[in-house]
């Protein structure tokens, strides 16, 4: 049992730190620290910087342009990037479609699509959920009907994150209504410029525009855009759900959030004392700090298992559940810490002559509400518990 990093891992961490210190633009890290919205250009800029260093596609094998990192190296990079307030990687092309194509795509698809993800030519988004198929993806209805060497697509997708920036979408579509619901689903690539596609913004609870609805009306795409076999898309969907995703526990986010919380609670005042000196508040902080310290080790233990056993087991569900609970608790504490100053709309607070709170804290209530999503999206925590149940009770 040895919890320290190997000399190679320490060297790697130092390399990452130096890179972040030298290459991460201050405008970007400032925005991240403040919780401000990143523009499309901001995200593309950071992708380009990482790509220049060969570090963009952390989960890809080297032959396709990945850095060939071990799980521990990926963990180190994620944690350092979060501590440096680097923008997160937009995952749809890099962490989702990329691994899918590498596993299921034809050589031609890989050659066409992967380089354009790396160099930023394409921005992919995801067409999975539908209004009637959220947690129960197998019940999706949007259909692709074969017509010669084209599919004709009709239906609706929703919760398409950052779709407003995308020029491509990968979709799960129904290609057959026979057999079990899972059996007639296919994974298809679609160009968003194709006639018949309309994307509409969904305004979220806190007022932001992050997700979209996508409507397909007689949209024609070549059959060559099918990934894997027809009607076998469910295999790909499951691969993505249980695939070892980078940073599923979100430890980096939480570490960053805890440091911000600690600073905030040292600054806000209640009854003539710093909030951090209030025992009730400090007790909550200490509890979540403890949970987070444990989470770091749980994360490393499971990475270490994954390295040994190949595929990650249901443990990734555990990481998702506890990791998101910790992040939400941190968001909750930051919101509380602000007191009444949490309530004014952030834009108005910042644009007035006198800011109510430091710029890097203005968005804490917004972030709290927006991050209610992390226990819902990507397989809700209830779904994760069902997955764990199956594994643990051997049902």
């Amino acid at each position, binding site marked *: 049992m040895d919890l320290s990093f190997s000399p190679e891992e320490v060297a790697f961490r130092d390399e990452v730190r130096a890179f972040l210190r030298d290459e991460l633009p201050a405008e970007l890290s400032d925005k991240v620290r403040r919780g401000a919205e990143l523009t499309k250009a901001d995200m593309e800029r950071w992708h380009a910087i990482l790509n220049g260093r060969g570090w963009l596609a952390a989960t890809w094998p080297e032959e396709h342009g990945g850095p060939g990192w071990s799980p521990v190296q990926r963990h180190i990079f994620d944690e350092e990037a979060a501590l440096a307030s680097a923008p997160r990687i937009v995952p749809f092309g890099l962490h989702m479609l990329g691994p899918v194509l590498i596993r299921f795509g034809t050589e031609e698809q890989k050659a066409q699509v992967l380089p354009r993800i790396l160099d930023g030519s394409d921005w992919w988004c995801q067409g999975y959920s539908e209004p009637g198929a959220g947690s129960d993806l197998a019940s999706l209805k949007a259909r692709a009907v074969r017509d010669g060497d084209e599919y004709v697509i009709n239906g609706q997708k929703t919760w398409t994150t950052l779709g407003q920036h995308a020029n491509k979408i990968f979709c799960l579509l129904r290609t057959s209504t026979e057999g079990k619901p899972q059996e007639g689903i296919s994974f298809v690539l679609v160009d968003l410029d194709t006639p018949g596609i309309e994307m509409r913004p969904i305004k*979220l609870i806190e007022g932001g525009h992050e997700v979209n609805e996508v409507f397909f009306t007689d949209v024609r795409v070549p059959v060559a855009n099918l990934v894997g076999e027809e009607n076998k898309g469910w295999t790909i969907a499951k691969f993505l759900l249980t695939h070892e995703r980078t940073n599923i526990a979100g430890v980096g986010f939480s570490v960053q959030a805890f440091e911000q919380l600690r600073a905030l609670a040292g600054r806000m005042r209640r009854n003539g004392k710093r909030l951090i000196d209030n025992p009730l508040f400090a007790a909550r902080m200490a509890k979540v700090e403890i949970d987070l310290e444990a989470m770091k080790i749980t994360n490393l233990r499971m990475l270490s298992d994954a390295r040994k056993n190949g595929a990650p087991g249901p443990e990734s569900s555990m990481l998702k559940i506890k990791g998101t609970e910790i992040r939400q608790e941190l968001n909750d504490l930051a919101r509380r810490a602000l007191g009444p100053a949490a309530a004014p709309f952030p834009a108005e607070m910042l644009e007035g002559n006198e800011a109510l709170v430091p710029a890097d804290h203005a968005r804490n209530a917004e972030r709290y509400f927006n991050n209610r999503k992390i226990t*819902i999206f990507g397989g809700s925590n209830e779904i994760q518990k069902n997955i764990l149940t199956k594994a643990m009770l051997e049902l």
Partner: protein
Amino acid sequence: MDFDVSEDRRMLADSLNRFLADRYGIEHRNSVAYDAPYHDPDRWSEMVELGVLHALVPEEAGGFGGTGFDITVVFEALGRALNPEPVLAALISARLLVAAGRDVEDLVTGTSRYAAALSEPDAPYEVEDIATEATADGDGWRLSGRKSVVYGGHLADRFLVSARHGDGIGLFAVNADAARVTPYGMIDGGGAAEVFLDSAPAELLMTDAVAAIGDALDAGALALCAEAVGAMDVTRDTLLDYLRQRKQFGRTIGSFQALQHRAVELAAEIEQARSITILAASRLGGDGGSRTVSMAKNLVGRTARLVSEETIQMHGGIAMTWEYSASHYAKRLVMLDHQLGDTDHHLERVMAAYAA
């Protein structure tokens, strides 16, 4: 013992609920609540005519209510409709003016609009630990300081301001045009303002205002509890409807036992929140009233957060959207805890009795 609402109050509640449902429904509410001036003057006049403000003031001061149960009846209805109008500012101001022996006729008829400017950046929930200073200036006074997140301050003609003078904490009136007022909207709807006082001319209302401010804040906290109870009732009903109707995996999601148990736990907690609010209303202004209000604000704060978070979680994505009404209820239920003392602030007030 009798848990029925009196006939008079029931009639007020009915007419207010009907008015809010017909004339201030959720779509209209959202259009008002999130855009300056965060206020609909016509609807506000109609609400005043219905007697919303009279109900908050005792008879001897020209109203027809003013007890704990009058306050809860009004605010429960406002909470059900998520109403963004500045009734809370009127309640607290009226209570302060009555304590100062001032006339509240112009307030209850809607002729003048007051806001209580008590909170400060470094003393968000505290009555006494404030920095705003009052200096005598001839017959009058001048105030300097900053009052923060003044609810209703975006609409006020006149502010009731707490400030320290040589001998303690006094209450002063300041005309809005004597202060620099920065209005803004709130994440949960409605408006407030920062109030900057730079040697602003002020009228002294009370030299020792600590008790009066405490009482007014108790009334305000009780009002927020009742508002939350109203909002929680609606939220729970929305959730139960959704659980009955929404299908996933070929069944209504309400047939999943894990969700069932969470939903009924939430419903039980709402009944507890209602109970403590009733108790606080019965004791407002009397023995143990202040401690009971703190009990209520703590329990309601805990429950409202639970209801908000669980409602979003059990709905899934839909309750994360602006379009779906439950998201606005969820925001209000959480942000209520940031007004007039959060759960910890009030828990500490409850704990204080043990130190004896």
